[in-house]
């Protein structure tokens, strides 16, 4: 009797083992699988040249390094003669800018004017007029909702933006942020909402705006002048 019981127990164990192996085999059949992906869209702001520079009213001088649309902005201009030998009303350089973003943007500018002169009659930052022109949001993929805020007074050569100082006789750009003296440190020139809709980067459209620089030829102290302007766009 004990031997029969032992045999039965062994058979039971074997059967259970078989069933467990079968169960494990069935559970091992994989019928589902997952692919988990993560990604990021970072804030993107971009400034490029909007195209060729337009230089007018110059006497001598010329565009040394022109702007190329959709290329980094690295323009170099010789404004030529700015003394009374230049009889034009203004020497004006119009520099097209192109901005793109997937977030609200702020375009700021900082400028320096260095001059070899030593007197008060030398060309200074206040003698270089500046302003941003009409902002254009057009083309496929460009967001046309929302308004851009131009912190400048626009074209500095407009009559409303400058006049001869009745006391000193010196021409002055008087509009709000209408000359480079207002940009001795980084200062906002333009701001606005998202520029681009969800389109590929290869879409060449964007927000375009002309940056005007103007100098009124005057009896400045003779010498050489270097005007350096840096634009920076950020996504606050």
């Amino acid at each position, binding site marked *: 009797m004990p031997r029969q019981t032992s045999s039965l127990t062994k058979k039971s164990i074997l059967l259970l083992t078989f069933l467990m192996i079968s169960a494990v085999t069935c559970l091992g*059949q*994989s*019928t*589902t*699988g*997952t*692919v*988990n*992906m*993560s*990604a*990021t*869209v*970072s*804030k*993107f702001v*971009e400034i490029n040249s909007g195209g060729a520079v337009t230089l007018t009213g110059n006497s001598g001088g010329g565009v040394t390094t022109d702007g190329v649309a959709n290329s980094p902005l690295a323009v170099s201009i010789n404004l030529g003669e700015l003394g009374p030998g230049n009889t034009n009303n203004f020497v004006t350089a119009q520099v097209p800018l192109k901005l*793109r*973003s*997937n*977030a609200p943007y702020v375009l700021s500018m900082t400028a320096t004017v260095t001059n070899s002169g030593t007197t008060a009659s030398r060309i200074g930052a206040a003698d270089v007029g500046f302003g941003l022109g009409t902002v254009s949001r057009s083309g*496929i*993929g460009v*967001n046309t909702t929302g308004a851009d805020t131009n912190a400048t007074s626009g074209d500095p050569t407009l009559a409303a933006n400058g006049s001869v100082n009745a006391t000193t006789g010196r021409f002055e750009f008087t509009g709000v942020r209408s000359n480079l003296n207002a940009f001795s440190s980084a200062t906002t020139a333009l701001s606005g909402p*998202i520029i*681009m*809709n*969800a*389109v*590929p*980067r290869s*879409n060449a*459209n964007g927000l375009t705006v002309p940056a005007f620089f103007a100098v009124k030829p005057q009896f400045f102290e003779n010498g050489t002048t270097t005007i350096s302007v840096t634009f920076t766009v950020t*996504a606050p």
Partner: protein
Amino acid sequence: MFKLTKGIVTTLAVSALLLMSAAATFAQTTGSVTMTATVSNFVELTSGGAVTLTGNSGGSVITDGTANSPLAVVVNLGEIGPSNTNSFVKLSVPLRLRSNVAYQLNMVSSVAGAGATAFSLKDTDVGFGLTPAARPANLAAGVDTNATPGDPTVGGSTDANGRWVFAGANSTLGAYAVSGAVLSGPRINQAVAANSATNLSLPAIFAIKPQFFDPAPAITITAQFTVVAL
């Protein structure tokens, strides 16, 4: 007389016993064993091996696929905004299928954390497709039906708004917000051992065109495959 009778009875009894023994010996010369068994429907999905991530900027494969192991891939696609200048961020995930019956491979997917404006990444911005090849000779004969247009980076164009559109039907995760068939076909394996390495391998391709999407720091895209027996 009594002794004679007893001897006869004894002889008869011994004879009868011998006859019975002989009869019993003849009855044990045959036997039978009856067995029952079952072949159940078998369908299986596992990883077909390492994934391939291209066109990424800052992304990486976090959990790679391992051939013949359960599919549980985790990938960081990296930057998919305009600062990524590549044409596509593309992920190719090898799948491995086996079955002893006709099968259907389904997929369901989701996109989360991308934002909710018109310019946020949508499931329709995530291209998807399978590119199965003809079955090799070591598999059961038959043709697999691909419900997707194939590699999503082939074709496609911008729409009237300038947004990228993947070509064809079922070419994005937008088609799989609810579970839907992506591939189906007749039995895959011939009658081979369970440990046979023969299988139907094919890549599942996911692709995103970097665009001026709304900024989003943590987008999660999930695709779950399920294979069922038809």
